Every structure is written in C-alpha cells, then in structure tokens.
C-alpha cells in the first residue's frame, strides 16, 4: 500500500509516495536514481547494498523503505563534500582497495559506521566489523589497510 515517506537523503529532503514494504535498495536505485548501492545477493549475505541510516550501516536489500521515515540516509554518492573525497574514500583510493569495485560502496559505508563507533580500531576490530562483506576479487588486505589509514587521518573524528 502506498504511503508518504519523508526522509533526508544525502542531506536533501525527499518525499515519496511508495509502498512502504518495498526494500530501500530498489527505491534508491530505481525511484531515486542512486545506483551506488548494489544488488549482490538479495538476502543480506554480501553487503554490497550497504547504506547508512542515521549513521548506522544497514543492508538496504533487507530494509523496508518505511523504516527510513524521518531519518537520515547516506549513500556512497553523498559521502564526498564539494568534490573533496571523504578520508575513507581517499584511503580506499590510496590503498587501491578495490579491483572490480562492485562491493566498494558497501565496504566504504560499513567502514564509516565502524569508525564512528570505534575511531581507533585494531586490525582485529576491522576484520570483525567487515567480516560479513564479501569481495570476490580478494581486495581484503587493501581494505583493512585503507580503514587503518582512514582512522589515522581522521584522528578519531568521523564526520562528513
């Protein structure tokens, strides 16, 4: 059933008339044209659809859009400010923490959520935090390195 859903998306107000049971991933990708979040498995196993809802990483393929009412949604498109990459993005570039890049936006947003909760993570903290993100190309080592670098660069202050 269609309902009115208002929320903030990458700092801009959005008002939608949609069936609230639809998954956020498809609303973002189809209705709102933000294709940064990717479909990888559709069941929450791979993490490539990850976005931030109130700064918390969620699997948008499993997240009904009605749950974002009044909340703040960030996709990878909303992370850079005025053409300046977020330190996590910069670190992913520096470490070349991607190959095909399909899992990258989910990885970056999970890292954001992780660093917000734990600005100075140990390697083990990073591995635990990223464990449920799959990368087929095997960029894992680089991703861990990038998150460490981002943590150093941000000096404990995670903000966009």
């Amino acid at each position, binding site marked *: 059933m269609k309902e009115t859903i208002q929320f903030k998306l990458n700092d801009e107000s959005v008002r939608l008339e949609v069936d609230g049971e639809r998954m956020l991933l498809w609303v973002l990708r189809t209705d709102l044209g933000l*294709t940064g979040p990717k479909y990888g498995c559709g069941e929450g196993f791979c993490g490539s659809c990850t976005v931030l809802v109130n700064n918390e990483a969620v699997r948008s393929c499993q997240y009904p859009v009605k749950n974002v009412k009044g909340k703040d949604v960030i996709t990878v498109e909303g992370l850079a400010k005025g053409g300046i990459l977020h330190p996590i993005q910069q670190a992913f570039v520096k470490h070349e923490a991607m190959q095909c890049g399909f899992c*990258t936006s989910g990885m970056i947003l999970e890292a954001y959520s992780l660093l917000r909760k734990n600005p100075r993570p140990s390697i083990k903290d990073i591995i635990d935090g990223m*464990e449920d993100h799959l990368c087929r190309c095997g960029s894992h080592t680089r991703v861990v390195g990038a998150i460490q670098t981002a943590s150093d660069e941000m000096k404990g202050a995670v903000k966009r």
Partner: protein
Amino acid sequence: MSDQKYPVGPLAEVGAPLILGRRGFLKLMGGGIFIFFSAGDELFLQEPARSQAGRPGLPTDFNAFLRIGEDGRVTLFTGKIEMGQGPMTALPLMLAEELEVTPDMVDIILGDTDLCPYDMGTFGSQTIRSFGPALRSAAAEARIVLLELASEKLNLPPERLQAKDGVIFDKSHPQTRVTYAQLAQGKTIERHAAQKPALKTPAEFKVMGKPAARRDARDKVTGKAQYAGDIRLPGMLYGKILRPPAHGSKLKNLDTSAAETVSGVQVIRDGDMIAVLHEYPDAAEAALAKIKADYDLPEAVLNDTNIFDHLSKVAPPGRAVAQGGNLDEGAKMAAFTIERSYLNSYVAHATIETHTALVEFKDNKATVWASTQAPFRVKDEVAQALGIPAQNVHVIMPFVGAGFGGKTRNTQAVQAARLAKIAGKPVQVAWSRADEFFYDTFRPAAVVNIKSGVSNSGQIVFWDYEVLWAGERSSQQFYSIPHHRTVVRGEWGGGRGGGESGHPFDVGAWRAPASNTNTFARESHIDIMAAKAGIDPLEFRLMNLNDERMKRILKAAAGKFGWTAAKAPSRRGFGLACADYLGTYLATMAEVEVNKETGAVQVKRVVCAQDMGVAVNPDGATLQIEGCITMGLGYALTEEVHFRGREVKDLNFDTYQLPRFSWLPKIDTVLVNSPEVPISGGGEPPIITMGAVVANAIFDATGVRLLQLPMTPERVKEGLKRG
C-alpha cells in the same frame, strides 16, 4: 568503458549502418595520426566473417588502433574490457613508454563495439602478454612517424632529434622543438604497424615497471562508476526470467494468473522463456514469485559424491600432450613408486555483480550495455537473437563487476534482447543470485591420476600423469624427469551439460582454467614423493629442476618466507608449491594452523614470488597477486558446488562460502624480473598454487594428506581420524 568524455555526438554515428567508408571513419575521428595494429595469435585475431561483413570500410587486418589527436592527446581504442584486472591503467603505461608521452596524455576507450576494432574477448591473461607487445610496437611506430614529420617541419635529419613527453626537439638545441599536437594538426595520416620497430629494453623504461595509480579508483569510491545494472533509459522495463528447479527439467503445467494480477506487469512466454516485465525490478521479482509451474525433473543420478567415479568412467579418450623416455625403463630405476588420484570439485565464479544486460531495440537497431568479457561475442549473439545484421548492434561497455571467465557466456544479453523486441521498450535483465549460481558455467570437477617413481638418490625417474576433465593447461610438468608422459582426457571448454557430456550442467573457463586442478595434483604429488624420500620439499624440488628461472623463483620465495630445511611433516605447518603459468613463473609458500577439534584450517601467512618477465605496473601486479591468493583460499578450503542430479543446491552465499576477512593471511609478494624473457600476464598465475600450497602445509602440520579439494573442516577431521 572509457576514462574520458569522448565526443559522443558524431561518433555515435559510426555505429549507424556502416556506409561510412574508411575515409569517413577517419574524418569522424577528427583527424590526427592513426596507427592500426593487430595483436595476439591467429585465434584471438580472426574476426568471424559475419561481423567482418558488418564493418565495411574498416580495415580488417588490425584489432586495435591509437590516435594522436590535433590537441596532442593520445587515444587507444581496444576491444579489451576492464573488470578490475587493470588494463585501463596498465595499457596506457605501455603506450606512453614507447610513444614518449606521459601517461596522463593517454586516454583509453575499451570494448565499445562501434569505436573499437574486433577483439575476441578479455580472458586467458592475454591482455598484457599478447596485446601488450603489439601495442608497444604500434606506439614505437607512431613515434617514428612523428620523428619523420618533425624532421620535415624542423628541417633537421631525424637522427638529430629526440622525443620526450610529447615534444620532439633538436638534441643539440633543445629550444628548437615541435609538439606532437602541432605535428598532428591538419593531418590525417594512417599507418599500419607492420614492421617491428625496436622496442625499449627494460633498462630504458621510464614509465613501465614503475607504480601507477588505478585510473578507475576515484569513480569506484564515489559510486560514479557505472555497471550494466546502473544504466537507465526512459521507459525501460526490468525483466525477470523463470528458472526451472533443475537443468533438463520439462515444464508440465504453468499458471501465471496470480502474477498477472500485479499492477503494471507483463507476463511473456517466448519459446522456452517465461518472463515477467515491470517498470520496477522488485515488482517484477514479486510477480515472478507468483508464477506456479510444475516440472518433470530428470532422474537424479549424479551427486557431488559419486561424480568422480562417473567422470572417471565416461572420460573421453586421452591425448598425450608431452612425453619423453620410456616409462617402463623409468619404473626399473625407481626405489619406490607413488600412485595417487586427486579430486577437484565444481566451483562457481560467484562474481558479486551478477550477469546483467540492458538492450534497447529501435528502428531495427540494438544498443546493448552488458556485463561481459566478450562484447563482440555479445554483438553477434544479440544480432542473431533479434534477426538483424551484426552491424546493427552496438555494444557499449560499462564497468564489469569481475568475470573470472564466467562472463564469457552472455545468456542474459540474449534474454534482454528478446524481451526488448517483444516489449517494444528497453529491457534490463539482471540475474538474481540464485540465477547466477544456477546458470553459471562452473569450473569442471576433475580427477588426476599420477604414478611416479623416485630413485635412491632422490631423483624423480618417471612420471605418468593423466588428467580427466580439467584440461591441458599447466598439465605438463617442468621438472627434469627422464621418463615421463602427460595425457589429457577432456577439456574445460568441451564439456557442456546434458546427457552427451560427462557433466550434469555447463562448465567453462574459471580463472586460470585447468591450471588450478593440475597444479594441485602435481605439487601435492611432488611433496608426497619428497616426504617418502625423507627430503625437505624445497630441496627435493631444487634437486629435480634444471630450469634456472624456476630455481631462482623458489629461492626468492624461500628467502622472503624464511624457509629452513626440514623433512615433512615437520609440525611447523609450512607448505610450498611452484608453477609455470603461460610463461609466468611463481613460487608460493604458506604457513597454516589446523584446529584438530574442528578441522578448521587458518592460513596464517603466504609468500608469493612471481617472475612475469617485467611487471608493467608493479602496483597492479601486486594487487593481482593478493587477490589471487585470497580468492584461491576459497577453492582450497570451502568452495564446492553441491548438487543432486541436475539440481544445483547452492544458490546463495549462505551455503556457498567465499573467503572472508577473518581468513586473511599475512601476504608478502616478491616480484622478480627476468628482462630476457617476454613479458607475461599476472591476472591469473598466483591463484593456481593455492590448493597445493595449503594441502602441503596441512600435511606438514598434521601428517594428514588430503587428496580432494576443497579441504573443508569435515574432510580435514576425517583425515585426522584416519590418521
């Protein structure tokens, strides 16, 4: 995909029915200096006649070209594609090196079937190995043309001139100079790189062999990089296709009435294809789930346990791909013989991006955006499906979310094309994860039988090797063995699914086809002989090798790893394996820890030493090595497609386990250069040693020899129980 905004307007017309002649083509490209060249062996070059016919006016004897524009920018047009393995970054380096420009002056257009000449596809580590030398020759040829033009313009003999960073100057008066842009202005010159100009030696390299940043990194961290599923067209629909429960199923009853109640849905039945279309992909998925279909399933005869006996029984006749000496003579020299069979399972490509394509069909012309490793194959297949000439199909390449051989099959593009024709609107087909597992062309399950003997002095005296179903690549051993034979029965490319073949479903190329299985078997067997002979496995290999390059790479790995001689099992959990993959030499060493309660194996560190002649982009090569090692842990430890009859049981990542962050070993890579040998590829080699290196390390840790991949906790526990 391309890394620049190319003027799409006029160029798009190149894709119009190609009435444009050669001259028209050059004119459209906007003038400048063009060098046409071809690369690769015959197989990779030959364009099927039907595609050729679609490109009148375009020369037929090249498969790439580069252009020096009137603005001085250099553009490389090639049918290769970027799927993460890095040609977008590495190829411009090779071009820049020989042309004497800086890499940032080079743009690259990849895989667009209207802009780029025919290319068979991106696979087999061909891009750097076969395409690279041709590209460098072409760039060197372009430099010679520019020097000739400069000589004319500056009125100086060519030998007085030098090219550097896109400028040609008088060696004795550097202020007497002319830029490439100035030389290209107002000219349309075309040359064919037929002769072979002298290429730089590695000692002269200024660009190649130096680290270079990925060109696609920024787009990939901002979400700007577009994949096939990210392309949107006005009025487009999303197609979802009904998947039978098993291969070879026959539809008995179909009831689409519930699906048809979904508002805005269109249910299509076209031959064997039952599909739904909707303007929202999730609504299409929901409608598909409402279709009721009953099938007759083929009798379930095979499963993941009995498959190996079956494959042994039905293997095609053998073909000796290498032999020397006399096996009977060898057997007489042996102090002991070892006979073993090695088993390897079906594995999935499991790229995170599923097969996806968008097709727009209008005015008898089709435009296709597809996740594929072979855009020109898509062009032909879509043309055939639509019943239009190949020249009417334009394939545009977005980024590809990895391939590993799986995206050489393009069923999804044909499905999208058929649906677009029926619907009269653009249709995007993106396979679900379950579709992806079900329709995947798995790496074939395989059996390797080896019988060998060792003399009293530790020399391998005979080697009798037979590989069933995996294929030939890497089957030929490189040790110094007087009496040997290698027999190949069945190829990975020849085993389509169905009753007539050995496999219950389709199989195909999987990253380094055949080599993962052959290397697992060979290097495991070498270790078994070393252990039986009571000789350290590194020492045993060095004793049995004459190939100095292989010895050197083993020693390089040993140095980095800190290998010390010990007879296995030493209980240290150390393993090694080495290989020659199409000219790339590598040696891998690993340390593992085995949990004897659970059977779980943790690979703690891996050292990989690789000699690919010269690493064109050492950063890229290192990234590929790390990726291969991490990906390779999957087929070594967990990845195995479970099936019953022709029904695929693993349909998502809950049961099909990919490597995860917690598996990560500490990875060290060593790049060794051999400037005297041709440059070879790096996208595949380091994955092939992963099965054996882990198996050998497990043996060293526990004394248990595992002969079947993957080495799951259950199989390790079973092995420990057997003792």
